[in-house]
């Protein structure tokens, strides 16, 4: 998780990913940020997140994103 938080911080340095629980709903993450996170995740973890997983629930917090990656890692 620590490594993943560093990855997020690299993409969006001004956001406190340890605290925020409504990143998409509060407008802290916009569509281009989400695409950047997905591309970074594909690069670092080799995990491809399909476009239909781009829903606010999956990107509202660092934990939700991490869970999503873990799920796709296994498949």
């Amino acid at each position, binding site marked *: 998780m620590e490594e993943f938080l560093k990855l997020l911080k*690299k*993409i969006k340095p001004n956001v406190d990913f340890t605290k925020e629980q409504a990143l998409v709903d509060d407008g802290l993450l916009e*569509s*281009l*940020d989400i*695409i*950047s996170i*997905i*591309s*970074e995740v*594909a*690069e670092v973890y080799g995990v*491809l*997140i*399909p*476009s*239909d997983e*781009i829903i606010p629930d999956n990107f509202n917090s660092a934990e939700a994103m991490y869970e999503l990656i*873990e*799920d*796709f890692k*296994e*498949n």
Partner: protein
Amino acid sequence: MSVVSYGFLVFFVLVCFVYYALPKNLQKLQWIVILAASLIFYASAGVFYLGIVTITAGIVYICSLFMQKNLDQQEQLLEGADRRSARKIKNEMKQKRKRMLTVALCAVIGILIVFKGSSFLIENINMLLWHMDHGIIPVWKLAAPLGISFYSFMMISYLMDLYHGKIHAQQNFLKYLTYVLYFPHITQGPIGRYESTGKELFVEHAFCYSVIKKGLYLMVWGYFKKLVIADRLSAFVTAVIGSAGNYEGYIFLIAGILYSIQIYCDFSGCMDIIRGASECLGITLKENFKRPYFSKTLPEFWRRWHISLGEFFRENVFYPVSTSQVFLKWNTAARKRFGNELGRNIASVMPILCVWVLTGVWHGANWNYIGWGIYHGILICLSTIFEQPLMAVNTRLKIPTEHILFKIFQMLRTFFLCVVGRLIFLGNGLSDSFHMISSMFKRTQTVYTVESFPLTVNEWCVVLICVIFLSGVSVVQEIMEKKQAEMTIRDWLDKQNVLLQMGVVLTGILVILCFGVYGQGAGAAFIYEQF
């Protein structure tokens, strides 16, 4: 049957009467009243077209049943599975659903292309063949069914939601047909989602005076925008754009500005009428406009104009294209080369352009619409790429970006960029558009007077007063939204005494009757009805 005709008003009152007059034990069949009304409404545009919509809906319905069967099997397989294996099962089942989705999408998009794009494609192929000295393919000019672009996208949205397992397929074909044909939304949208509209369509709706009253307020407001402002301006815009070759200079800037006001009042007015009509039946349709001319940037403008189309393209084109392997690699490479912020913006250029070319084509297979789409695509890419550098320049120059005057400047800048886009959209061929845009700021010897155009001084005064009033109401709405007020102007009015409510509605109706353009042969068809 246009929603601004007397026929529609009589039809709508009758539908409301039958809808609410059903005895309590039959109220669960209210949707049949809507189906019958929608069939009559659509058949009035041509029975043949009703056949086309029904066949398309039939294909979608059959494919949706197969997809639902797959979802039901998935449900069984998921019983007892842990989260990770559940995800695996879901992915496997999704692959199977993809076949049915492809069949249905090919049918819907194929029919859409045949009616909307075939003549454009053949004309352009013929142009190529002519250059290569080959024979020529005969062009078929097919009149497209009413609202084909809107209902096709609603069907695609339904299929995509089903494919992703977000909804359950409607098992009753007549109910599905009711959703597709629902008379308030079939001609000009909004491109709704089955999840919300579908639910509301098939539940009982008891007569509620307050709900109907609020629906009527919205309808009166919509008729005001369409009949008093849009249709009055239409005469001027048609005169200038219809014979653009005969004009030159600043008149095109005026025509562009007035067309921007006209198209807003026309489309958002229609949305208000149909949303109001739908609310009277107890069914809420999605808001499609949020005062777009208050936008400070073009991306913001497109989040506030034709919202449902923007959402459709974001979900069904932008995200899938951006998350394809090729674009993800490109995104990573661009961020490594140019840094995170600039890199991701540069990488988003191609997906944004894809969205905008398709948005142009959605309006019709025509070089003007495609040119308009590319124009907006390029501007949005530039706006995205230069957002950060411009912010840095503003900070360095200590420009007070939060000052109201700077915000007004940003709004005017966005409005001007839209006006130029409108001239591309409007021209009769791209050369016409280039003539209008290039001539816009040229000095001209020609002097235009009020008499040169179809509108009289009195008509100009009426339009001006009404546009000022519309702007005032919009400012109030903006302020209420900024202050996160929980009520809208309609909610506020609903809480006032009956005399004030009656006074406002009657004044609105009186203004429409005195200053509106209506009656046999008067006024203009809705601009978006042709799409």
